């Protein structure tokens, strides 16, 4: 096994503090820091929605993730997802997670 340098080891410890590694299915040493730290990118947990005619901030060619469940359609713009990466939402009483 390749020896981890002490600096890398310390960084890994700093970044992984607060998570539970008691069980794992991937090698913990393959987990890398992405930079901003835990919640450095804040996910959205209380999303608000507008109708299409109120979505003037969107341009025609903007990318969106669209979902449609039992007649309910929702669009999650990349413009917002870029800053939050995940939205915790509900559709028809089911909890859903939209990730980017």
């Amino acid at each position, binding site marked *: 096994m390749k020896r981890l340098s002490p600096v890398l080891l310390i960084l890994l410890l700093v970044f992984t503090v607060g998570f*539970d590694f008691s069980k794992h*299915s991937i090698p913990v040493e393959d987990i890398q820091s*992405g930079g901003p730290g835990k919640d450095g990118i804040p996910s959205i947990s209380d999303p*608000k929605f507008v109708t*299409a005619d109120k979505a003037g901030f969107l341009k025609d060619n*903007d990318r969106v993730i669209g979902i449609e469940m039992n007649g309910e*359609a*929702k669009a999650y713009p990349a413009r917002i997802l870029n800053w939050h990466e*995940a939205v915790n939402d509900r559709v028809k009483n089911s909890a859903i997670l939209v990730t980017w």
Partner: protein
Amino acid sequence: MGGKTYTFGISGLLYKSNVLLYDRETESLWSQIKKEAVTGPMTGARLTPLPSTLTTWKRWKKLNPGTLVLSTDTGYARDYTVDPYESYFRSPFAYFGLKKKPPELPEKELVLGIEMEGAKKAYPFSVLRKIKAPFNDTVSGHNITIHFDRESEEAYATEKERRLNGTVSYWFVWYSFHPDTSIYREKR
């Protein structure tokens, strides 16, 4: 999941250059691409994938005029007119040095990845842009149809008109999770 609702945050950690989320209830880490918990008490628990579409606002609005749209009133002060990843999107390289370059395609080529009964296949956008869609293909004995809309670059697969779960991602991400994937080639 199991009658309980979990809320997810961004851990700031990556596995194979791909986001790890965590759930606030147990602090387990979840892989975005694998859609399952990879560390902590929830290890092995899976999220049920829902069919979703990555497309343009213009096309989504046209097909779903009654759609709701996530509001910019998120509770966070962010400038949503700015794309924080613009330079990454333009760059031909992955953020974090790759241990090994993926073979055959440029690392940041977009692909539609399909998984059926353990068989994986990647449809490169460079090929989809050139050929006539929809077209039929076979994955693990299943006859599937690949759809691609040139204008919006919306790509998805169906089987008997039922939409399949597919993943649109950079080639290096798909390949690092599925090194045994096959690649769709243009028929000559």
